[in-house]
């Protein structure tokens, strides 16, 4: 029961981060391998403002979101859009995007190391509470609630507003979306920026209950990617279920076997997905 509760709480933030990556890959067609570093950057902002200005991480996210949005918009507009324009094919763009975002991730790690090379340790809302008979720290629960709220808001926005519909149209087919008068480049920039903002907020939330450091981003990139692939690219329901599975399996492995094996467990899930359901949990097999 403890495992289920902690796993589920962890899954909330995982799902949020995966949602950010999903927007970037599903709509803007950029496989952003600097996603984890962005998360850590959000965490660093939260840590730094808490330690230096005693600012609550719950307030920091309102600062992190617009800054990350603007930063990601600029990155898309000036670094990634030129790649989209010069790409001869989707495969070509994929390779370029992978290399460019690797470059960005290294630069971000390098900068963060020079800002704060140690662990981001701080204590925020650590008092224990009881949920369904399990004792957990309040920060985990709060982070979960905020993640769920943001995720739900995003879901409603995508499914019930005009810009949301336009964004889904670009996700399905950029060509067709362009034909019906949607500004694909703008929508892609917007999706990339929103995805980045969501990821950075996720990072700020995670930092309240997991101790991060500047170079841990790649692990979160891996997890987000595994969730997106498991759930099926662009499939929000799938991503939520995948996040829950990953959250619970990781917590179970960490509690029952060894915390050092969580990545191995994630890989095992990844391998099973690649072998048996590469189209995602809910995806329909095309053959």
């Amino acid at each position, binding site marked *: 029961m403890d495992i289920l509760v902690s796993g589920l709480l962890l899954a909330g933030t995982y799902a949020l981060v995966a949602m950010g990556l999903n927007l970037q890959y599903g709509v803007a067609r950029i496989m952003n391998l600097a996603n984890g570093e962005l998360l850590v950057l959000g965490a660093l902002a939260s840590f730094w403002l808490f330690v230096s200005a005693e600012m609550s991480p719950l307030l920091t996210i309102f600062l992190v979101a617009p800054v990350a949005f603007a930063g990601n918009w600029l990155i898309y507009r000036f670094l990634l859009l030129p790649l989209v324009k010069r790409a*001869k094919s989707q495969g070509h763009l994929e390779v370029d995007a992978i290399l460019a975002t690797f470059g960005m991730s290294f630069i971000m790690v390098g900068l963060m190391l020079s800002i704060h090379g140690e662990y981001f340790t701080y204590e925020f809302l650590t008092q224990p509470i009881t949920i369904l008979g399990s004792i957990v720290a309040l920060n985990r629960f709060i982070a979960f609630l905020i993640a769920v709220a943001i995720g739900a808001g995003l879901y409603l926005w995508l499914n019930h507003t005009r810009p949301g519909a336009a964004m889904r149209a670009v996700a399905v087919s950029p060509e067709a979306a362009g034909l019906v008068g949607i500004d694909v480049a703008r929508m892609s920039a917007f999706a990339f920026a929103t995805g980045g903002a969501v990821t950075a907020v996720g990072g700020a939330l995670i930092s309240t209950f997991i101790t991060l450091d500047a170079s841990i981003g790649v692990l979160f990139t891996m997890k987000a990617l595994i969730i997106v692939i498991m759930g099926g690219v662009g499939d929000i329901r799938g991503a939520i279920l995948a996040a829950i599975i990953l959250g619970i399996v990781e917590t179970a492995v960490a509690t029952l076997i060894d915390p050092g094996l969580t990545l191995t467990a994630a890989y095992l899930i990844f391998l099973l997905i690649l072998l048996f359901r590469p189209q995602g949990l809910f995806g*329909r097999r*095309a*053959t």
Partner: protein
Amino acid sequence: MRQTGSVLSVNGVTKRFGGLVAVDNLSFDVAEHEVMGIIGPNGSGKTTMMNMISGSFKPTAGAISMKGARISDLPAQEIARRGVGRTFQLVRLLPSLSVLENVVAGAVFGHRKRWGRDAEDQAHRMLERVGLEAMAYAPISALTYIDQKRLELARVLAGEPEILLLDEWLAGLNPTEMETGIELIHDLRREGRTIILVEHVMDAIRSLCDRCVVMSSGAKIAEGTPEDVLSDREVIRAYLGDDDA
């Protein structure tokens, strides 16, 4: 349904994409040296059918056999090796290879494996065959649209396919190019090749095809000589809509 001497037979083939039935319980046979046309309105499942014959898609139900052996559960490369060659609806070339190398690609891995000198000689013959010999050492970017189409055809012919699949090979050509194109397929027909073609150009269908299968919404609605099927009431209705029938 099964005729003796049929090279390819399609038996009750169905293809579903999620809830959409793209091809619905389709059956037909193609005899040796026959030119078979698959025609029908846009979205009627013609290209999907071609993709199943060439192995790009696996049928959801039913079977496709070549000379009595089932090929519909084989991967595309295996079907190609057994002698099914295809062109693509939107011409697909290998841009970083030269014109000659594009054709060598067809000769090397195809149905009859060649290598080195042998493959190059074969490629030169095929380029000559489609009238592109002069461009053998040019880069792909130097080709006009019809030349790209010719090159793709040369690549397929280089593999000496027993069954040739042409997916809207004439589409997008201007009237002069069209004449050249039809003449080229006529030549192939005279050589006695077995060809299955998907086409919208009615003149081409009339003059090239021995028989046609007409598809509408994934199902076969008529089969016979081009004259017969093109005067069939149901075929006209499928093409022009109910009001005009």
